[in-house]
């Protein structure tokens, strides 16, 4: 079977491609150029290296490799959303958008043009099909590496076209495979941060890209101004550093109001929430549940899913009630509902 592998130049997608090759598939490697390499305004030399790494792996394994220019699509979907969310006082999750709006949409479409009905990636997650034909998304075997949180928005059709060959392996096993196959990327460090902001300075990136960045005030829960700030895009819920105020007790960002420009700070206890609502909810293992369904909810990448219950609301929204209060429920991040290892569904925290 012909299968397209989305190759980032990292060890995970390289091993994914290698495993499929060994299984006898007719593998085609595709790498995506997602932002300009030549103009240098992202300081993106590393990414050109990544593309070259992907090319070298393909050549070692003996399958064709091409680079697709998806800059326009990436700009329209991922980057514009990223900038808009920060400018609206929310904290975006671009990798999830990239998965559902670029990798498993545009790239999958292109793959079909090349005779492949699916796209394989190096994601740590598992896909299963139930006897009645429903596609399930599950946590990877390596819990520490699990990326199902970033994949919750894949529709049934997208899951049908997705293949995650390393989802059933641990990271050390993946590196061992890479060594066994003699891949040059075997010891390449894992990618960090967000790929299109390699210096990690999100605030500067958003300020460059957004025409609408204005300052505001840092206020306490009584509405008293404590300091001035240079824009709501510089803050995220739960943030403690960089507030520019000195007080006796540690203060955290508890609320961001993009309209007024007010960033409210308070003690750690003020961060706790017992409920949340989410929009644009994608139900994966079940149809939208009208009544309460026991589940756990993960509210950010490095969050241990917390127990509670979920129910669907109108307009593709959902509500979750935690058994115990959770700290820093952050608008713009994803909430993903799990039943043990299985993704029940997920949406965007409001």
């Amino acid at each position, binding site marked *: 079977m012909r299968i397209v592998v989305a190759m980032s130049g990292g060890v995970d997608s390289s091993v994914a491609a290698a495993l499929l090759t060994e299984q006898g598939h007719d593998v085609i490697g595709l790498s995506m150029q997602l932002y300009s390499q030549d103009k240098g305004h992202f300081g993106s030399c590393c990414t050109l290296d990544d593309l070259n790494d992907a090319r070298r792996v393909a050549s070692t394994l003996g399958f*064709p490799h091409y680079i697709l*220019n998806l800059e326009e699509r990436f700009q329209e979907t991922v980057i514009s959303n990223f900038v808009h969310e920060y400018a609206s006082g929310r904290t975006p999750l671009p990798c999830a958008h990239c998965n559902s709006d670029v990798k498993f949409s545009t790239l999958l479409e292109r793959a079909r043009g090349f005779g492949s009905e699916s796209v394989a990636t190096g994601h740590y997650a598992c896909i299963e099909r139930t006897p009645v034909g429903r596609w399930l998304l599950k946590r990877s075997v390596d819990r520490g590496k699990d990326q199902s949180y970033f994949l919750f928005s894949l529709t049934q059709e997208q899951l049908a076209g997705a293949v995650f060959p390393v989802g059933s392996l641990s990271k050390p096993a993946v590196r061992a495979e890479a060594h066994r196959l003699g891949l040059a990327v075997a010891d390449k460090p894992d990618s960090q941060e967000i790929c299109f902001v390699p210096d990690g300075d999100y605030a500067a990136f958003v300020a460059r890209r957004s025409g609408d960045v204005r300052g505001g005030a840092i206020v306490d829960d009584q509405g008293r101004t404590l300091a001035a700030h240079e824009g709501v895009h510089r803050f995220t819920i739960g943030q403690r550093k960089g507030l520019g105020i000195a007080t006796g007790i540690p203060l955290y960002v508890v609320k961001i109001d993009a309209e007024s420009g007010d960033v409210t700070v308070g003690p750690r206890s003020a961060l706790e929430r017992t409920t949340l609502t989410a929009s644009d909810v994608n139900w994966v293992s079940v149809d939208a549940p009208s009544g309460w369904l026991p589940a756990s909810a993960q509210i950010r990448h490095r969050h241990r899913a917390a127990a509670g219950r979920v129910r669907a609301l109108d307009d593709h929204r959902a509500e979750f009630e935690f058994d115990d209060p959770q700290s820093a429920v952050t608008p713009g991040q994803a909430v993903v509902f799990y039943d043990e290892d299985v993704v029940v569904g997920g949406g965007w925290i409001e």
Partner: protein
Amino acid sequence: MRIYLDHNATTPPSDAVVQRMTATLRDEFGNPSSVHHFGQRAKAIIDEARSAVAGLIGADPGDVVFTGGGTEGDNLAIRGIAEALEPTGRKHLIASAIEHEAVLNTLKALARRGWKTTLLPVNETGIVSPDTLRLAITDDTALVSVMHANNEIGTVQPIPELAAIARERRALFHTDAVQSAGKIPTDVKTLGVDLLSISAHKFYGPKGVGALWIRRGVRLQPPLTGGKQERSRRAGTENVAGIAGMGVAAREAIAKMDSESGRLAALRDRLEDGILRSVTGTALNGVRSPRVPNTTNISFDRTEAESLLIALDLEGVAVSTGSACSSGTLEPSHVLKAMGFPPHRTQNSLRFSLGAGNTETEIDRVIAVLPGIVEKLRNLTRTPVRA
């Protein structure tokens, strides 16, 4: 079966070229600058190749400088003349908008260092009208550089007329003949130019070697400094085997040009007519004539060239678009842009460039598979952007 239709990118070295190069590498290791026997033998090989290359462009061998390829020849010509004429106050350079990057980016680099530069527009057929040069040229113009044949669309420029205009204004004229030498008669006297650069691997010679012809009496200041090789115009020990290979390729090109250009033109026309007839929404970019005989450039409505190129490669057909950027992705063609085509056409065009190995059977296979591939790509659903 793989079908190679990308000869404007590079050509496979002929058997005779490979043989000659192998023998030279093995048996003739001398440094041509050395006084002794070994050096003399290497020098003789270069002299012989120089005569052959001079023959290809109707030149005196003494005026041919071997370079490291087309890009180096263009740089040597443009930078060399710009520097040499700088003290005279002539600090204006002209080129056409559809030149190869070797010329365009050299002009850009010089512009950053204070030279004034003008790019001549082309019309929708990709031809530089002599009138545009008449309007652009001034008494400060040091050099005009217009390519003989374009690499993407194959159109041949009216070089003799353009060169005459430059001569009237006492400006020098350079032509990048990389895509014409070996394909069509390319004679320095008929063209009336002052400098002409060529590249061996475009006519079945090796990569990494080329030549710049410099009219006797034209002085330039070489950007590369070092030894006195190539009459002090190209420093560095000569690529003896490469030069030997280029000489063989030049002789073969001269011998085969008449028969091969007719054969290729017939095959190219067969391909072009076949595609335009069998695939809906296609159009020829450029003009049928004057054009080099091996090249056609066709746009495909509603079909991204990027996907089409990959799908064709997976079917064993190697073609290309104009130029690739550093990562290897495709960029909209600056040539088609300069011809006034809208983005959907500059991004939806493929170049087919034929050569020695191509047969009628191959061309017919391409015509047979292409309509299905294009149709499949056109029928893919386009995912809309989420609100």
